[in-house]
């Protein structure tokens, strides 16, 4: 299990994006001699997440369909979910988790079609957070909705409450979890907006995968920053949000559905 995407905190601190605590205790690498370096083990402390940011995505549903398969595969590889992570080794389509999925929509009257990826919509008013008895289902200050699996009791009420079917229950033992994404039987999970990458100043894995394929079909960024790509795009195009009638203010916007 090689972590290509995992970066060491010392080398990947994007200070411009994050506020440093503890007087900028960034790690120093002192070269004493060729091949001999002394490194301070105290890494930079970053955070906390604040409401100054509101992370969001803009998804262009008119983009070619195969891109969404790419996004799904990137998510699986990054976060370590899918049938191959079942300890049993067996695929169980009805119970295997899906953090992001390709959804096809067709208007039966006109025949118009669209295909789009659906993942946790990171609502500003998330019903899953409201209903959770223990507070395991939570929203970070910067709008990222997460499951705190340390206190999730597996009651599944959040799954009942989510209008987007974006949560999965881990039905069986899993293996080879990523160090940044522990997963375990009996708890609920969903898209984390790649919070571990976002905190390190990177884009979510699905966005990066599309970028690497030369596509901008998903734009990720800070909706609170008027100069961010996503804010400009959202200001330019009229965007849609799934079940906008519920007024949950999802952080994930779409266009061209």
């Amino acid at each position, binding site marked *: 299990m090689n972590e290509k995407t995992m970066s060491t905190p010392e080398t990947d601190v994007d200070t411009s994006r994050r506020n440093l605590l503890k007087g900028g205790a960034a790690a120093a690498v002192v070269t004493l001699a060729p091949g001999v370096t002394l490194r301070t083990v105290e890494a930079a402390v970053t955070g906390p997440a604040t409401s100054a940011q509101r992370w969001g995505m803009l998804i262009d549903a008119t983009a070619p369909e195969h891109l969404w398969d790419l996004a799904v595969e990137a998510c699986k590889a990054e976060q370590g979910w899918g049938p191959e992570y079942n300890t*049993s080794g067996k695929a*169980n*389509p*009805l*119970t*295997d*988790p*899906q953090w992001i*999925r*390709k*959804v*096809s*929509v*067709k*208007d*039966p009257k006109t025949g118009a079609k669209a295909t789009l990826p*659906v993942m946790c919509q990171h609502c500003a008013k998330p*019903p899953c*957070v*409201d*209903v*959770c*008895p*223990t*507070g*395991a289902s939570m929203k970070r200050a910067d709008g990222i909705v997460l499951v705190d699996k340390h*206190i*999730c*009791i*597996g*009651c*599944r*009420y959040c*799954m*009942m*409450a*989510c*209008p*987007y*079917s974006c*949560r*999965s*229950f*881990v*039905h*069986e*033992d899993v293996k080879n979890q990523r160090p940044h994404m522990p997963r375990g*039987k*009996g*708890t*609920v999970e969903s898209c984390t907006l790649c919070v571990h990458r976002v905190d390190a100043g990177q884009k979510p894995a699905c966005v990066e995968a599309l970028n690497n394929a030369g596509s901008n079909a998903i734009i990720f960024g800070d909706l609170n920053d008027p100069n961010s790509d996503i804010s400009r795009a959202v200001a330019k195009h009229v965007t849609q949000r*799934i*079940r906008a009638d*519920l007024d949950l203010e999802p952080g994930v916007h779409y266009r061209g*559905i």
Partner: protein
Amino acid sequence: MAADTTVYKEIEGKGGDYYSLIGWLGVVVIAALYAVYNMEHYGHVVTGMTNAVVWGTPHVFAVFLIVAASGALNVASISSVFGKHHYKPLARLSAVTAMALLAGGLMILVLDLGRPDRLIIAMTYYNFKSIFAWNIILYNGFFVIVLAYLWMMMEKRMTPHSSKIGLFAFLWRLILTTGTGSIFGFLVARPGYDAAIMAPLFIAMSFAFGMAIFILIINVAYRGTGRPLGDVILFKMRNLLGVFIAAVLYFTVVQHLTNLYAAEHLDVQAFILMDGGIYTFLFWVVQVGIGGLFPLALLFNPATGRTCQGIAVASVLVIIGGLAQMYVIIIGGQAFPLLMFPGMEVSSSFFDGVLHPYTPSHWEVMLGLGGIAVALLIIAVGVKYLPLLPTSLSDAKIDPHHKAEEA
């Protein structure tokens, strides 16, 4: 109020019948624990639940028992709160039945959690915006209040004050059932649930299910011990049960009529009422027919409504109908796909836009039956070691002024 001259006495509980009852209930409980072991060891993959139908058969049994628990307290409430002294002799058993049913229901609910080992977290971390968290407080409070109520009824010095706590218990149980109904009523995402009527519907259901169970327990306890059980008290409970069944039917009609009026809910209503297969069958045949109209007919037909057997059969039917109603509400409501894009045809590898299949696994049924067995076990042991049951419920005892033609 006339002085209470009722004599309460523990049952003998020595015969082979009693021990075989305890034995069989014990077997069912052990089977349930074995089911839980499997569900926790292998994960919920061995159950019928999926990522779409997340609450399955255990929840059907659990919510049924929890709802029935608050209804079983009715008999005590009627005597304490509404001053109907005829019911006074049954108040102790009513309180114990209520606690036993709640314990059975909660046992199922807790053991069906993904992480039942973390129960302590449910007790120590509260999200007060969650109706579920409120229910945890309501359920725990129910035990405390009903226990205090029972103690005050059984402790002579406290008996004069028992009506005050009886009123409190009555209010608490109304809030509790409102909370249970609101678990479903507060789900904005689900067209099958999202309605305020869930709370009063659940209260009506609690009255009916609790009374049906209580009538059966009284019947079994008095026939089994050979203590006299007169028609007066039985017919009074029969009348109440009839009213409660009618109330459930009424709220069910209102629930569906309201939803039929909203165009956005038409599809899910059509699913439950017309083309939902097993759910439509359970709704019309089992819930409305076998569990509603038929018992009503039995209770108010002089030929059957005046016999102990007729009333008992009607009670059994109400319980069966109640379980069916829970199944339709809980599982039928989830089987219908979420409307992510209303008016559109939706498909995906995650089963968006299609009816979600659900088949109960034997583990889930075993766990559900185990909850019922635990409730009955508590009652059976309770009546043996505590003076809960009056030595007589004969007509003369219940109502000294009773005239034979009254019933």
